[in-house]
């Protein structure tokens, strides 16, 4: 995360909670209200090049998992999606012998485009399929309180409403606060502290949300991003009023840790559980080799 050399506070997203940008100690981390959790996964293997163009065998999956008592319950077919398919440029489909053995996703590409561009198009489509699976599940979700890995773009309904969904973004590819003062406030959060909620600037494809930064863990020997997550809430007053409560839930979800996963500082255990679950659905390398003959 970088901050601008000059004060550019005017470009920072507006705060939607009263008061200045500051560190707010989260109260009430003694329980959690989350009942469901969601994540998606994908695994792709380049299996062959047809005339130099890429063909991928990819497995995409997503699941919403309910927690009953303290146990995660493997989802039934309604709450689990997976797909195994060959992803290839549409213009090579008819010429690829391997296409006979699998479902094929033919991607519309320009045959004259550079190979790297075609490859990126194919890989992007795999991610889009996984995203679609997540979206379908999120749209289907109709009861309980859901915590999803990532932003809430897929959770917004056609009519603009949300169910009770909270997103946790682990990566910080987008720097929302560029002013030095506010960026330092974010980076200076201590474990168990959050920022006031703000309304991030979003692209046209993204949904309007409220968000705040939360420090789940802190260690002096780690970077300033260690344990720092950005939480997304539906842009409704009800969620804003409960921001502290929801932050408390997330702090409570720090246990158990998802060690030995290297992202354990930000990866909450129920999300880790789903990752492991979805990984179990993916074909192993041996199985892929067997499928490919």
């Amino acid at each position, binding site marked *: 995360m970088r901050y601008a050399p000059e004060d550019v506070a005017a470009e920072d997203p507006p705060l939607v909670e009263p008061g200045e940008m500051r560190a707010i100690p989260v109260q009430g981390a003694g*329980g*959690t209200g*989350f009942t469901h959790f969601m994540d998606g996964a994908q695994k792709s293997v380049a299996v062959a090049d047809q005339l130099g163009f890429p063909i991928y065998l990819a497995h995409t999956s997503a699941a919403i998992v309910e*927690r009953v008592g*303290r*146990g*995660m319950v493997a989802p039934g077919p309604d709450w689990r999606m997976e797909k195994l398919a060959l992803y290839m440029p549409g213009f090579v489909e008819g010429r690829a012998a391997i296409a006979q053995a699998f479902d094929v996703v033919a991607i519309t590409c320009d045959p004259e485009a550079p190979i790297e561009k075609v490859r990126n198009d194919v890989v992007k489509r795999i991610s889009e399929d996984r995203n679609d699976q997540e979206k379908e599940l999120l749209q289907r979700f109709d009861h309980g309180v859901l915590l999803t890995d990532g932003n809430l773009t897929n959770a917004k309904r056609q009519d603009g409403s949300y169910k009770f969904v909270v997103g946790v973004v682990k990566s910080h590819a987008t720097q929302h606060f560029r002013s030095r003062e506010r960026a330092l406030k974010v980076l200076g959060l201590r474990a168990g502290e959050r920022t006031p909620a703000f309304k991030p600037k979003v692209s046209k494809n993204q949904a309007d949300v409220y968000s705040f930064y939360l420090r789940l863990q802190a260690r002096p020997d780690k970077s300033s991003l260690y344990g720092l997550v950005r939480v997304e809430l539906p842009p409704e007053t009800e969620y804003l009023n409960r921001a502290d409560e929801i932050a408390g839930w997330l702090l*409570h*979800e720090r*246990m*158990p*840790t998802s*060690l*030995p996963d290297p992202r354990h500082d930000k990866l909450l*255990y*129920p999300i880790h*559980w789903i990752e*492991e679950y979805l990984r179990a659905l993916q074909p192993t390398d041996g199985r892929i080799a067997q499928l490919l003959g």
Partner: protein
Amino acid sequence: MQANTSQEIGRVIGTERKPSTAYTFQFWARPRERIGIGSIVRVEAVVDDAQVTVYGIVVEAFAFNDLESPLHEFLSMGGDATITPPTMREDIRMFQAAVLRREPEEPVGAVPIGRVYLASEDDVQKALRTNEFRQQFGIACGCYGGKDNPVPVHLHRDFLLGSEAGHLNITGTSGLAAKTSYILFLLKSIFTHSKTTPGAPTVATLLFNTKGGDLLYLDKEPEHVISPDQVEIYHRCGIEPTPFENVEYYAPYKHVANGELNTVRFGAEVEEGNPTRPFAFGLQDIMDNFEVLVGREDLDAKAAGFLGYLKDKYVLAQGKLPGSGGERQAKTLGELTDIIKAELRQADNGEGKGVQHPLTMRKVLNRLTNLQHRYSGLISHDGKTLGPLSKRFEPGSVVVVDVSQLHSDAKDLVFSAFISQIQDLMEDRKLGVDRLIVVVDELNKYAPSGGGETYVLSALKDISARGRYMGLTLFGAQQFRSRVDKEVVGNSASHAFGHIEAEELAQPGYSYFTPAVKEKLATLPTGEVLIKHPHFAQPIFVRFPIPPCLRGSDGLRKYPRAADRSLRELVAERARQMRGNPNEIADLLSKMAEDNDMANLLRELHRAPVDADAVAIIRQYGKVSVAPRKEPRAVLDDDVDPFA
């Protein structure tokens, strides 16, 4: 578990590190499944379009979660053990199973990765192959499974009683393993099978009551409550939970001169309709078991030679005494000692050539004389053998020899003599039944490993090796199997293991059990045993019920031993148990003089069957002559008419 439906519980796991083999496999199961060590499962898989079914028994259990290091869990909780995280770590229950059977039998390949089901009743019978022999040859040995649905398990008759294989050996900690209870249950099952199965061999059993009153009330109704679970086991095994029928009890005399029996099963109430009978050894028994009587180390070659000489010359035949002593045959121990004295006099006088050196003869004389005092209640006063082996065994009969009141050496004598006599009966095919089951407890003592070759050990080895061909089956029990002669144990085809101490389980003989099975054996509750049988590819845990007869402790409390009584009282009590008019018996006894040989009369009453005429015996042996009836003395003058 339902009778004939299977519940799917998990999947076989085969990893590169821990693959399935031809004889073992692993599977996971949901934590809530009621499965553990000893559970039987069925694996279903399709291999090359062919259905493959594998039956296995759980021999090890594992559980682990997604932790890589204990430190992770510590860090996870911040070192605070009181914290309850909102999500439980995922964990898995994994089991290792040993293959019991596969269908088809060939090829014997690795267990396929398939679906795992909890075994139904049909599955259990197929897995143990009891479905192939249960109807005709099955002897129920207990029930597999939980209390909600016990599944009977059967042993193959010909592999338990002979002649295909034979003998049973049971190991268990004294007081905890209920070895006696299990043997009684098995005997009950064997008798039921013998009675209800067409073509089944006739069976009788001989048991030694070595301590307390465990086996002295087998024909009495129990005072303890047989719980519905246990009644259900009886029911599933096809056995009526009723006391044993046709039980005979034998006990030695307290002293040969005293007709009182040396047993706690004593008294009109407990003996009603089934009095305890005496047993005693005759001269020939003593000669045959002299080694036991005097101790092996005390019987050197010279003494043994002299005994052999005496037996051949004076016991089995009529021999001529040295000098001008005439011909003599010894029928009692006293007569034999007289003969030895005569031989000794001859040797001391230097008349003729002595058979043995006088010192050897004196030694034998000394030992024989001591026997009369040391084993006074066991040695017959007239030299004749008395007891159950003097007649053939009846089918369905249970013979209990009570030696609980004897000292250790006397028990050895009884045991040794019975075993040798049974061995003789076996050789002569005079047992009277197709199969005689001899129950021997404390094999540690009678057939120890690493000890010298005693007469008893030799007989037990012979019975264990050849008995199954000749109708004699050994049910041996011990606390320490590792300390029993390997030949005796090894010749047993069937084995039962109750609660066993960890020290014993550490012996090499138990190495074929997995650690989990050993752990279970070390904590096995009373009423459960592990059964190893030739028809079972792996040992099976089964439950068995409490015996349907009066427990020893209850019997001793219910029938306390009466205070010592006079010989006259003993005779009267014994006679009342027999046939005859009680008033007449009382009348006869009241007329007997005090100097009548009451001890002799009591022995004769004991010797006679229960339905014998007591009056006749009293008249004959009590030497009671009933005087002619005297006319009542006239109290009035004849010429005085009282009614006038």
